[in-house]
């Protein structure tokens, strides 16, 4: 309320006329491209090409693609929850420990106590929700910074895991749980020949075609609805080019998987989660409020957003997703161990930031976080294929994380400077 301040005065000075500049945009033959939001996908494509060349194509063989997905599914699931928390301007350091404790709980219920597996899974998910509610309470309603609460949670839930398990793992898990974590869809319809590519699972291929058809119809409907509302849409040719590219990627992925052991169940689960959470983030009131809180907390409060409740529920959600990841991780190893989930929180956080989340909150996409996670997965996998020692893998991952965030900060500073 000072009488006059430079910030107030500057605003009027820019005048009302003139179109604001859009920094970070590159024009490619009439097609405009937002570097800040699409840079991540270009980088991902470049990394895949790089490692395909370095590994003589080993990166994209059917078995390796399947490995990348199965080995990283739990971090990707965690990244979905983490991106929502980071968009809201918080952080969760406890997810690795929550993965461990929920995995241990599932093992105790199924193996030691002999609960039927569906009931035990449900109980584990509920436990994850309760853990999230515990942390969400301290953060949202008590007002302790999430960094502190989840740092405490990281210790608490690791301690709880070790108390439950002692020094040893519990296993083995029932077959159904192992199939979910590590298994593949059955060849319900048998194989068909794909010429030089050899035999492939028909059911997997059909699922792929259905997915492509679904994608194209959904995009077409959105496009037509927008046109109906008089919004500008991309030219038809560009639209179909995008659709063709998307279809090609899905088809390639599905064909490769169908040639190996069909579709991993975790891929099916992951696809459902990514789709569901993307829609939640973009299209629901709740999702929009997460962005509003991260973008400007005060403005969100003054616009009637129930900030405490929203923050509470995104932590509950993180707890549930951690439990899902915990079950899958334990199921894949076929035992719940005291060191399970160690440093998963760092992978999930890195995935979110590489995927375009802003350090200050308010920005980020579920698909971006998944892409960020996949970038790290491909680097991990590709480098181990060419025989790099693990310390070099770690080095590269560190540089990639720093570079990604530096790029984000740099584009933002340019945006600020042009104002």
């Amino acid at each position, binding site marked *: 309320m000072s009488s*006059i301040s430079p910030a107030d005065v*500057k605003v009027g000075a820019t005048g*009302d006329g003139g179109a604001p500049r859009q920094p970070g945009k590159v024009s490619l033959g009439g097609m405009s491209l937002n570097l800040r939001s699409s840079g991540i996908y270009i980088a991902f494509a470049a990394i895949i090409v790089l490692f395909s060349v370095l590994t003589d194509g080993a990166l994209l063989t059917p078995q390796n693609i399947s490995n990348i997905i199965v080995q990283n599914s739990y971090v990707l699931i965690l990244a979905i929850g983490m991106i929502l928390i980071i968009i809201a301007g918080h952080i969760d350091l406890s997810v690795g420990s929550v993965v461990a404790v929920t995995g241990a709980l599932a093992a105790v219920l199924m193996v030691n106590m002999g609960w039927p597996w569906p009931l035990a899974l449900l109980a584990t998910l509920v436990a994850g929700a309760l853990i999230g509610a515990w942390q969400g309470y301290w953060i949202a309603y008590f007002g302790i910074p999430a960094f502190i609460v989840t740092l405490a949670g990281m210790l608490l839930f690791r301690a709880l895991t070790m108390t439950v398990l002692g020094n040893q793992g519990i296993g083995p898990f029932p077959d159904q749980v192992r199939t979910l974590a590590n298994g593949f869809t059955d060849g319900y319809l048998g194989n068909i020949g794909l010429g030089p590519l050899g035999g492939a699972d028909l059911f997997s291929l059909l699922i792929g075609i259905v997915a492509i058809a679904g994608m194209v119809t959904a995009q077409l409907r959105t496009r037509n609805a927008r046109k109906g509302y008089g919004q500008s849409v991309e030219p038809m040719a560009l639209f179909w080019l995008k659709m063709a590219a998307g279809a090609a990627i899905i088809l390639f992925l599905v064909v490769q998987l169908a040639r190996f052991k069909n579709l991993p169940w975790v891929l099916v689960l992951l696809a459902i989660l990514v789709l569901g959470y993307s829609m939640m983030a973009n299209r*629901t*009131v709740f999702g*929009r409020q997460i*962005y*509003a809180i991260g973008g400007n907390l005060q*403005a969100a409060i003054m616009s009637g957003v129930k900030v405490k409740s929203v923050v509470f529920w995104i932590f509950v959600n993180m707890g549930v997703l951690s439990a899902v990841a915990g079950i899958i991780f334990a199921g894949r190893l076929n035992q719940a161990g005291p060191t399970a989930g160690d440093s998963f929180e760092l992978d999930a956080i890195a995935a979110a930031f590489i995927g375009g989340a802003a350090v200050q909150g308010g920005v980020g996409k579920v698909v971006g976080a998944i892409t960020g996670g996949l970038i790290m997965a491909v680097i991990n996998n590709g480098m181990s294929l060419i025989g790099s020692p693990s310390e070099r893998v770690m080095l590269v991952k560190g540089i990639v994380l720093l570079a990604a965030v530096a790029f984000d900060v740099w584009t933002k500073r340019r945006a600020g400077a042009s*104002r």
Partner: protein
Amino acid sequence: MTEHILRMSGITKTFPGVKALQDVNLSVRRGEIHAICGENGAGKSTLMKVLSGVYPHGDYEGEIYFEGKRCEFGGIRDSEHAGIVIIHQELALSPQLSIAENIFLGNERAKRGIIDWNRTNYEAGELMKRVGLRENPTTPISDIGVGKQQLVEIAKALSKEVKLLILDEPTAALNDDDSAHLLDLLRGLRDEGITCVIISHKLNEVTAIADSVTIIRDGRTIETLDMVTDHVTEDRIIAGMVGRALDNRYPPHESKIGEEALRIEDWTVYSPSQPDRKVVDGAALTLRRGEIVGLAGLMGAGRTELAMSLFGRTYGVHISGKVFKDGKPIEIRNVQDAINHGIAYASEDRKRYGLNLIQDIKTNISAAGLKGLARRGWVNDNEEYRVAEQFHKSMNIKAPSVNSVVGQLSGGNQQKVVLSKWIMTEPEVLILDEPTRGIDVGAKYEIYTIINRLADEGKAILVISSELPELLGLCDRIYTLSEGRITGEVSRQEATQESLMRLMTKGQE
């Protein structure tokens, strides 16, 4: 003629596009208390920032002579070295440190980098005696009230061997006892030979304490008066502060005033930082449909605090009083309640409280009324686009599309986005806090037109503004607020800037 300790001549300070100060002259005599008066935004604080080196030499035009020497301050350290100390309205103390540590902050009593605590606390005690502060030097700042904190600031200034002490609104946050003590202290310092410059809105204090007064209006010096030889009264100062002509900067408007929409009675709010201080004290207001009501008050009078406490208790503690909507008592516990009762509040600080600057126009417009666009929690984003596009046209928001990021719009267009956001919630009562702050003249006219249109639609409107001409040009009826109390209610016909200013500076009896 007595010797001048300070002479500032021809000071011009330009912010991009705006001249905040234009050829300002200020001469202060040695050993006097010199008051600077002017409306909010007249340029007082900017002038003091030029003097104290916050805006370094080269950032402004004009010359500063202090103790006969020409000064080119590169920063606050330079001006402090010369003996000029400024105490800002928002105190610059570190709450966790002790009184003594704060007094010598940046000026530590140390030998070879090791702090001499005995000397620190002893010398702090001596300084505290001089300002009449009876506390232990080791008490943390957070444990003493704002009045005493103000004294710590003065003690800190004295520790730097101050010759010219500048106080920006020193009593704005103080209660009557603390204010009286502070004024006594300033008289004492004057007798010790320290020159004081005091910026104050409280004209009774100015007439009580100052030896001379300089009046600034619209970034120019209007006059410097000697309190005794020029027989200065509060009315004389007011005349100088407001004496500007009204041209037609306001669209003509005839209000069709309807039923009562909102009434508050006995509204009292306490400060969250000082729970014993009333920020709003027994205020009563009535707003009617189709009527534009103004709320005038100087800085610190409690205008924004009144509005925010009403709007879902977003400010203040121990809020009490009654609210009636359409004659029926209602309870507003949070922002959702306020919105549900058809109340909207557009903040004076649109960047902090109004907008998500990293998001686009349509997302900002729908932020408060998103539920109206959703079915079972799912937002219809095509409908959102359509509504935003409507506002884009009807409010004349100058941007290529509703997908443009709000942070890159000009102030006027940002304000139109904020107004759109609240109009979308279909409010019956709109509280607009400084709706034209930081906006250029053309955009102001557009905002006034929008406000008139909203009134014509039957909405009750409360405009809070520091600019009296704006209230006189826009409002049908104006309330004045001083020190948290409603001190008057004047119709457009009877109101003049002088009469409003008199009510706004009315102290408590």
